[in-house]
Every structure is written in C-alpha cells, then in structure tokens.
C-alpha cells in the first residue's frame, strides 16, 4: 500500500532522514521504533506532506505522492494522529472530530456513521462531545487525535507516539484500540519510543537509527533480537 524508497529529508542543514526504505502492506500494523532524534517523526511528517522530501520516492497505492500538498494526501487516504496530539483546543470534541472529515466527499451520512464508530471505540469522547478539546486530559486528547484521524476515513493511519506521557492503563486502552482497528481492516504505521508495546502488537517492525533503517523483521523477531533487547527494551 505504501512504499518509501531512498527518502531523504532535512531540518535546516541537518539530514534527518538519510535514505529510508520502508513498505507497509494493506491490513498490516507496522511499528517504527528508535531513539529520540532518530527521525521517526520526520518520516511521518514527510509521508503526510508537512515536511518536504529532499530526495527519494513515496508511492501510495501505486501513485507517487511525494510532490502532492498535504491536503491532497489526506484526500487520497493518508491521515495522521501527530506527536503532541495537536487537537483544536478551543473547539468542542465533536467539532474536532467533524473537522477530521474535512476532506471527505462521501456525504454527511457516512461521516455521521464514522463519528458513531469513533464514539464506540472511545466512549469517553461521546460523554465529552460538547466540551472544549483543550479541557480534556492527556489520554483523552490522544483518543481525540486518533479519532480525528479516523474521521478522514483513511486507508493508511499514521500514529506518532500515541502512548507518550500517558498512564499505563491508558496506554493499554489505546493499544487495544489500535489492535481493534487492524481487525477491522485498517492499515497502521505506528511510531513509538515504547518499543516493547509497539512491537508486541505489530506484524512487522523497523528500527530507525540516526535517519537510517538498521534492522527490520517481524514484530516477534525484533522483540527477540538481542540488539533490540539491549538498545530499546532495556533487558
């Protein structure tokens, strides 16, 4: 579904991505793990079109998309729940979710059906639907950010650090929601510093170090890999 080839990106004079190759197949959860500053967030932002690609190709459903504007990529079916959630704080929870469907052109009924699906996935959002997004707790804002991304009815969901700064019980809820999405046929590219949790639910994983993919394999294999265990799992 998504193929990234030789992708390079820069932050000023620093090369944040030094030629990344990666594929995500339909219906897979692919985890991208690595230390702070490895380039994980830059990779997701480049796939979404927020950061420009300096070189390389991004192919989505057989079409090159690396030159398309970010809003066109959303319309094609790539949506992202970004690092730091980036919810619209003064707007209500429901408005945040409705705006998630800003690019869809399949009618109000379909959007309302997806809104109900979001509320089934995260019931707390339904309780708080009239509340300003900025007044939610961190975990609720994370659920809102994922729900907002789902409202675009994406084919590929990019999740950037969904567990960052959250209590373990909330992390479990979010991971359960991601697994449930996969069972409904969603394709997910998951970026996590919490490598153990991400690899445990992933079909495949990539280890990113200083802008380069250094290891790849099934989630299970990476969890058992001595180098991964030492560097990222702390055992």
């Amino acid at each position, binding site marked *: 579904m998504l193929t990234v080839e030789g992708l390079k990106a820069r932050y000023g004079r620093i090369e944040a991505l030094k030629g990344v190759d990666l594929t995500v197949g339909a219906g897979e959860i692919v985890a991208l793990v690595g230390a702070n500053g490895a380039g994980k967030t830059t990779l997701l932002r480049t796939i979404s079109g927020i950061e420009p690609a300096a070189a390389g190709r991004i192919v989505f459903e057989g079409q090159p998309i690396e030159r398309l504007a970010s809003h066109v990529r959303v319309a094609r079916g790539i949506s992202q729940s970004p690092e730091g959630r980036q919810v619209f704080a*003064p707007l209500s929870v429901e408005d945040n979710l409705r705006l998630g469907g*800003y690019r869809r052109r399949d009618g109000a009924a379909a959007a309302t059906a997806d809104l109900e699906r979001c509320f089934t996935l995260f019931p707390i959002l339904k309780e708080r639907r009239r509340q300003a997004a900025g007044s939610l707790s961190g975990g609720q804002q994370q659920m809102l950010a994922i729900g*907002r991304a789902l409202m675009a009815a994406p084919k590929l969901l990019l999740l950037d650090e969904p567990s960052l700064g959250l209590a373990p019980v909330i992390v479990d809820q979010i991971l359960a929601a991601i697994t449930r999405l996969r069972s409904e046929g969603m394709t997910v590219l998951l970026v996590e510093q919490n490598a153990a949790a991400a690899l445990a639910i992933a079909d495949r994983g990539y280890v990113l170090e200083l802008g380069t993919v250094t290891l790849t394999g099934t989630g299970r294999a990476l969890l058992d890999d001595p180098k991964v265990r030492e560097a990222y799992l702390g055992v």
Partner: protein
Amino acid sequence: MAEFLQFAFSGLTVGAVYALVALGFTLIYNASDVVNFAQGDFVMIGGMSTVFLYATGVPLPLAAIIAILTAVIVGLLLHRLAIEPARGASPVTLIIITIGASMFIRGVAQIVFDKQFHQLPAFSGDRPIEILGATLLPQSLWVLGGGLAVFVALWLFLERTLIGKAVLATAANRLGARLVGINTAVILAIAFGVSASIGALAGVLATPITLTRFDLGTIMTLKGFAAAMLGGMGSPLGAVVGGLLLGLIEAFGAGYISSVYKDGFSFIAILVVLFVMPRGLFGGRSVERV
C-alpha cells in the same frame, strides 16, 4: 431626555461602524493570530471607490458592489503578496507587515483618488426621523442594520459551517489543521477577502454620515482595534459590543463633558476594562490543559 436619546443615537451609529471594523479584525485574527492594521484602509477603499464611481455616473448600488469587490481584491493581494510570503514569521512581524501595507494603500489612494474629503448622498433621503424629541437619520438605520446583518452572517459562518470551523481550527492549531487536510493558505485568503468586504461595506454605509478621505483608515483602524480589544479579541460578539460601547462612550463623553476629549474618553474606558479584564469583555474563556 431628548438630549440623552440624541447622544445615544449618534453613539450607536458611530459604534456600529467601529463594530464592523472590529468584526474584520476578529475574522483575520481568528484565522491567523494576525492583527491586521490595514483593516481601516478597507473602510476607506469602500467609501472612496463608491464616491468616485458614483461621480462618473455609475448607479449607487452598483458603485457600492464594485467598491466592495475592489476591497476584496486588495485584501486578497495583501494576503498573497505580503502575508503569505512571510508564512511562519512571528505574529509581531506579520503585524508590522500590515502596518507597512496600510501606509502603502494610503499612498496609492492619494494618487488614484485625491486628498479631499468626500461624501455620498444618503441612501433613503435626509429627512430625519423624530423619536421622543430626538432625531435619527435614515442613514443611521442603514449603518445599524448593516452591522447587525454582518454580525449574524459571520456568526453563522463560524459556528454553523465546516469551512467556518476550519477557520477557527487553523487559528487554534496550524499543524493539526494541515493534517486533517485543511488547505491553510486558502483559509487565510478567505479570511482576508471576507474581512476586506466587511470593512468596505462599513465604508459604503458610513460615508453619507462621516465623510471619507484617503487617510481615513488610520483612525478607523485605531478605533476598530480598540473596539475589538474592549470586547475581547477573537470574539464576534465582543467586537459588536465593544464597537457599540466605544461609540456610546464617545458620544456621551463629547455631549455631556467636552467634545475636545472625545477620543480620550474611549481610550480611558479601554484602559480601565483591560486593567480589570485583561482579555476584554468576552475573551474570558480560555481553559487549556497541556
């Protein structure tokens, strides 16, 4: 009583013009966090273009429409040529850019138009309406009605349409807005265009009462900005209340105390309000947990 009513009428009329300018500020501020100091110049463009088109024989309604469209084009150009290239700059930098744009517009207006004061005929005649001994010009009703119509339309746009919500979302979180597929450049252009049309409409409606000149924008920007701050920057309701309040304070201050200090009264009132309520009358709700 008649005197009191008289001051109230003139205060509300002037206040409605301030309110319209403040609504223009509100819209651009909501979309971009930019305070557009060329906002008052849209009022001048609206008034002056109508005057000059009308003088060449164009019927008044058509002249007004062309004038408003002219202001919209200027607003879009302001966004495209001055704001968009500086994308990512701090709000303060962008505000200074709008001050420069305002000077530029005034300079061009001096050349395209002239340096004289101009007036338009009242839309529905000059016969004053008598109410309890006080008189109200029919044109005042046009100004008040126009202010009310713009307020309702803007409120419906921001609260009831997805594009209006996208304007608010763009202001709240630019990155989040881009990630849900909002084309933020288009949203900003819409804000500048609509805002320019509101300012120009104010100019068209007010010119029969207040006269217009190439440099009218400066004082309009100041008063509109004061009204928006008084009501709470970003709140359409605050813009309207702030504008009307400012007009009333000026009219009563000038009428009962001294017209010499007319502008002083309004600015003292703003200082007092901002000391007590730093976010203005309607800007209070900003609950945010990080």
